């Protein structure tokens, strides 16, 4: 049981970072990015190809993060342009359809060019014992990085002018404009950030288990489930939901079976929405 919970925390932290990238873009701009998982996979492939070409680990990871950020920027200046002309529900729907299209094209291309490839990073050597459980160094490094990312995000949103400006747009877009903040400018920054977060998740995940070229849609679905449970637009909600669902997922995988863990996650998400329609920490509109 302890082993499952520790595994769950490792996974849950990654769920949290993953969902943060999706929930911020939605909360800030009313844009639902279904190509999110593909952003993670492309970043993973960039790391893989760079290492194939002889680039060493850290610069290769740097290239992967850069690729993630550029993908976010690319979405902003291409397919999201028509989306920005719409408001409210129409905006969500168009962003969903267009990004789904992008996801299909990217998936097809990746499967054709790099069939069966996957990123698997080996970090450290000996396993370490924690609370009587042997943990692989990869899991610990992945969790360390994820916690660091969490701390940076927390600092950014709590204590910097940029972070406050971003939160103000999520809280009330017109109010933000009245203090001189350009909401679109903030959304562009957040799209880049979300791409970088997707890349970070791909890299940290690959230290624990291979990130397969086909993983795009399952990453998006996981991010969506965690986002919905945490409450759309809520960063702390995304992290709380990530931890809870990560632990549920690991326990389910250990005691019931991996094949059922996604269904159990869905049931947990559905129950949360039945009890708290706005999610764990979401705001009621």
């Amino acid at each position, binding site marked *: 049981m302890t082993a499952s919970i520790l595994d769950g925390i490792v996974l849950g932290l990654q769920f949290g970072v993953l969902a943060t990238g999706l929930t911020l873009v939605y909360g800030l701009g009313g844009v639902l990015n279904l190509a999110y998982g593909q952003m993670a996979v492309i970043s993973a492939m960039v790391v893989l190809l760079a290492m194939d070409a002889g680039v060493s680990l850290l610069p290769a990871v740097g290239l992967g993060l850069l690729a993630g950020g550029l993908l976010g920027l690319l979405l902003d200046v291409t397919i999201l342009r028509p989306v920005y002309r719409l408001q409210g529900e129409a905006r969500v729907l168009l962003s969903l359809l267009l990004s789904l299209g992008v996801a299909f094209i990217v998936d097809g291309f990746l499967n054709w060019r790099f069939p069966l490839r996957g990123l698997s990073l080996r970090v450290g050597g000996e396993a370490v014992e924690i609370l009587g459980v042997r943990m692989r160094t990869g899991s610990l490094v992945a969790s360390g990085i994820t916690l660091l990312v969490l701390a940076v995000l927390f600092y950014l949103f709590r204590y910097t002018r940029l972070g*406050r*400006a971003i939160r103000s747009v999520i*809280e009330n877009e017109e109010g933000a*404009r009245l*203090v001189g903040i350009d*909401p679109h400018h903030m959304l562009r920054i957040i799209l880049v950030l979300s791409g970088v977060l997707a890349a970070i998740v791909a890299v940290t995940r690959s230290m624990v288990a291979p990130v397969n070229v086909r993983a795009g849609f399952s990453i998006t679905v996981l991010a969506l489930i965690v986002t919905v449970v945490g409450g759309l637009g809520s960063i702390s909600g995304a992290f709380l939901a990530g931890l809870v669902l990560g632990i549920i997922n690991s326990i389910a995988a250990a005691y019931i079976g991996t094949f059922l863990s996604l269904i159990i996650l869905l049931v947990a998400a559905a129950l949360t929405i039945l009890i708290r329609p706005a999610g764990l920490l979401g705001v009621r509109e």
Partner: protein
Amino acid sequence: MLEVAGLSAGYQGNDVVHELSFHVDEGETVMIIGSNGAGKTTLFRAICGLLPSSSGQVTFMGTDISGLAAQRIVRLGIGFVPAERHLFPRMSVGEHLALGAYPHRPDPETMRVVLDLFPRLEERQRQLAGTMSGGEQQMLAVGRALMANPRLLVLDEPTTGLAPKLASEAYRALDVLRGQGLTILVAEQQVPLALAISDRGYVLENGVIGLDGTSEELAADPRVRAAYLGVT
């Protein structure tokens, strides 16, 4: 300072205000009187760039600001306090005031002026805006706008939803600002309060200006007395 010429604006192609022209001079307090639906909010949203105008021109300190986005107009020196206030519910009083100065660091002197004007805000620096009372929220909305050191403060019905005692308190604060030389444009249904601090006023009826004059002239006008002051 502010010059509005032939401004028309509305929603979905239907103009709510029609070819309005008026001006506000430096140091003046000007009120726009009108009942519900007269077009006060539409007019102010169009001036401040939250609503595109269909025709006309708005000039602020010699710059044509018609068609500019709200976030740019704010930086030119117009602070707007909408009737709905548009606060950030899950952010604290301190964060609102800091954001008011965006993109700059809050200026300590301005902060002092705002906190002296609304001591309530100083006591509640850490409270979230969403948990505050209507009167406190109004103070916060005005305080946030003041943090940018505006040349012109535009307020849309600052007494909306306030009890009479709080409404007069709000106007006392505006009077202090006026005494400090700030130019103020205020829309109001509660005419007696606005009359007491205004130099001039315009009466807005069905989207057009029906009457204008100094506050004394308006207070003496039989139509204003009947429609807005409840005197027959």
